[in-house]
């Protein structure tokens, strides 16, 4: 009767969890695996310049949201600067201003950018820029006009014009007009610039595109450029480096025009440093972001809607059921003995924060010294509660000492000792001495190593990227864990350790 009840309840909870998970996956497009990364990138710009006591006005080009590109998150860090963003000429700029600045100035910009690989970035014609003025004059203008005239005769439409022009610019004969325009500089940026100028002379609207290569974990990324020209009512990208009518693969088109990334008035030696990195949770965040616009109540019921710090707390908390489930298996199916029921899970949580090796080391250190002191207290014949209180105080004192000493020694890992659950540690020390006294050091060591072993397994389960991703993105999957745990509550089979114990009864002898 009870068996059936539990079974039905298990099944119900399991299916509920499965259904909700499935809904989130299939309907809301939350990816099942963490490495199903939608191309989301963290871009970080560090800009520096030296101010000379005069008013400073700096402008930084920012990426902007267009079709296929969304900015999921954006931060600016600058000390004492007034910040404003502005959309002009089809670009988005960040203005930093200060009445008086002196010495080296640094500010950071960080953005989380999602680029949909399917929806190509098809920019519509934007007439706010004047794409016709070539900016050329004098002899350069005449040279450009001659080139365009000769190519116009040999080309059929805008596309062939662009292709012919590009190949002529890339292989200039040394004395020709092309080399005059390029002035001996063959870098792709210059080729793109000249391309834009000549196209404009030929009355084909064109513009320079500044882009960033999106490669995982690239510190000091370089900017590249290509062009867009007007053809049949829309902007067509052309990459002079490849000669293809598409923008370079995995590149973010950042801003248009010949302006530099950072321009500063009132300061010198301006420099920018760009870092790019791929993101783990990206696909999930993107689904989240897109869910916001879809107004699906279930999709907004997600942890990523919480403030970042709270999210971190839940990222940790949601791992606890996994550890506890593992503990249930290890205790009730395998039959391992541990100190305290959930102590290993809490220890594993602490290890998660401290890193395993340091965690084990620090834990053993506190436990070992705590035990020595506890053995000494045994001689004083103190009553139980004051004795326990003494151990807690000693443990806290030990942890403080470890932190201070390790910091002085320049070993900042030691600071993480503060993350250990103090009371759990104290209780472990007390229980261990009692077991030590009553059943001997062997039993105490068996139990403590059992606890460590379980903590270790829990640690591995709880630091697994995949598990962490799942519990955070699909919290309803924990219902399935709950169902399995309920089921284990009625597991009446043997524990693994009972098999050798009752082997005598197997009738084999």
């Amino acid at each position, binding site marked *: 009767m009870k068996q059936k009840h539990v079974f039905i309840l298990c099944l119900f909870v399991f299916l509920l969890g499965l259904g909700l998970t499935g809904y989130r996956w299939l309907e809301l497009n939350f990816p099942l695996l963490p490495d199903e990364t939608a191309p989301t990138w963290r871009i970080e710009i560090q800009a520096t310049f030296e101010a000379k006591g005069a008013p400073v006005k700096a402008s930084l080009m920012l990426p902007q949201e267009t079709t296929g590109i969304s900015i999921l998150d954006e931060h600016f860090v600058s000390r004492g600067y007034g910040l404003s963003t502005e959309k002009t000429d089809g670009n988005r700029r960040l203005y930093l201003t200060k009445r008086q600045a002196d010495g080296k100035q640094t500010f950071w910009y960080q953005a989380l950018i999602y680029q949909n690989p399917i929806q190509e970035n098809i920019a519509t014609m934007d007439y706010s820029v004047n794409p016709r003025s070539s900016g050329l004059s004098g002899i350069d203008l005449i040279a450009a006009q001659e080139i365009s005239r000769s190519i116009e005769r040999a080309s059929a439409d805008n596309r062939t014009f662009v292709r012919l022009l590009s190949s002529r610019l890339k292989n200039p004969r040394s004395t020709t007009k092309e080399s005059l325009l390029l002035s001996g500089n063959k870098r792709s940026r210059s080729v793109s610039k000249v391309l834009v100028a000549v196209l404009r002379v030929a009355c084909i609207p064109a513009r320079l595109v500044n882009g960033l290569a999106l490669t995982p974990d690239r510190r000091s990324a370089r900017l590249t450029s290509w062009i867009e020209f007007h053809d049949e009512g829309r902007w067509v990208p052309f990459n002079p480096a490849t000669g293809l009518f598409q923008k370079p693969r995995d590149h973010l088109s950042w801003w248009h025009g010949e302006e530099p990334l950072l321009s500063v008035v009132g300061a010198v030696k301006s420099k920018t440093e760009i870092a790019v990195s791929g993101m783990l949770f990206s696909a999930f965040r993107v689904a989240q972001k897109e869910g916001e616009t879809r107004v699906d109540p279930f999709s907004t019921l997600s942890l990523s809607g919480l403030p970042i710090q709270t999210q971190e707390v839940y990222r940790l908390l949601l791992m606890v059921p996994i550890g506890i489930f593992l503990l249930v298996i290890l205790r009730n199916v395998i039959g391992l003995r541990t100190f305290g029921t959930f102590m290993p899970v809490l220890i594993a949580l602490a290890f998660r924060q401290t890193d395993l090796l340091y965690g084990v080391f620090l834990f053993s250190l506190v436990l070992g010294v705590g035990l020595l002191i506890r053995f000494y207290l045994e001689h004083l014949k103190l009553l139980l509660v004051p004795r326990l209180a003494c151990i807690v105080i000693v443990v806290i004192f030990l942890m403080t000492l470890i932190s201070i000493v390790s910091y002085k020694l320049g070993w900042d890992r030691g600071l993480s000792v503060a993350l250990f659950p103090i009371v759990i540690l104290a209780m472990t020390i007390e229980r261990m001495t009692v077991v030590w006294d009553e059943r001997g050091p062997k039993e105490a060591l068996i139990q403590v190593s059992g606890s460590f072993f379980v903590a270790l397994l829990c640690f591995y389960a709880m630091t697994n990227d995949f598990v962490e991703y799942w519990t955070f993105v699909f919290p309803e999957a924990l219902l399935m864990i709950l169902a399995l745990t309920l089921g284990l509550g009625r597991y009446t089979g*043997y524990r693994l350790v009972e098999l050798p114990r009752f*082997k005598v009864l197997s009738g084999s002898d």
Partner: protein
Amino acid sequence: MFGIAKKIRAAGVIGVNQRNADYILKYNSRRFYPLVDDKIRTKLLAKKFGIAVPELYAAIEIQRQINDLPKLLSLHDDFVIKPAHGSQGEGITVITGQTRGYFRKSDGSLVASEDLKFQVSNILSGIYSLGGQPDKAIIEYRVKFDPIFEHISYRGVPDVRIIIFMGVPVMAMVRLPTQESGGKANLHQGCIGAGVDIATGQTLHAVWKNSVVQDHPDTGHQVAGLVIPHWDQLLDIAARSYEMTGLGYQGVDLVMDQKFGPLLLELNARPGLNIQIANREGLSPRLKKIQVKHFSSVRERVAFARENFRSIYV
């Protein structure tokens, strides 16, 4: 691995999980636990039901009373100090005599009354009780065990453990202390367990540390083949303890005193499973036989047990 599981399942062996889920959680109502967890209550209850227990000399409940300890102890030549909520024989001190103000422990060593005071204080603060709850200390009559066990136990007091299910004795064993168990009568602490045939009260082969032995490792005497005296009485006390506590599945610990005969030492709501090893038989078939029956009297239950639970090794 699975081969063993299959074989012991066929032998009807019950594991910890099954004991807890199918018997303890089902047949032992939690509200009856205090009756067996507190040994003072068990004693009083047993007296009410006319079951003999080791006489309670004194119960110490607060630290202040410890000062009166020497006076209390001077009244008795020998006695046992133990925690009221202790488990697995922990925290028990056996004093066999007194010489010049010192107490002689069962292992022959002498202790001062200060040491006994500290021991009692520890008991009161709850180091031996489950969950560290404050506890009481019991000072009681020291059992002088029946000479039949003299050659097959090393110090300590051998006791008889009978598992009863719905008031029917299911399986029994006698636990014989060894040097290794330090006089304690607990199988996992290294004492010998010998199965006892429910029908006749005769000891079967002995089990020591999960293996079958013939002789007591310290005394060298044969363990099997002894007939436990007063077996009828033992079965009767065990069966009656069901009415006493209302616990469907419990372990009854009995001792054989030279003077007073069988005494009820304590009851256990979560009796261990090693009794199966000592009997080399699984509990499950016997429990199932009882589950389908209804009994009207203690006598009927004992008779049913003697008839049905004859050991296959006799």
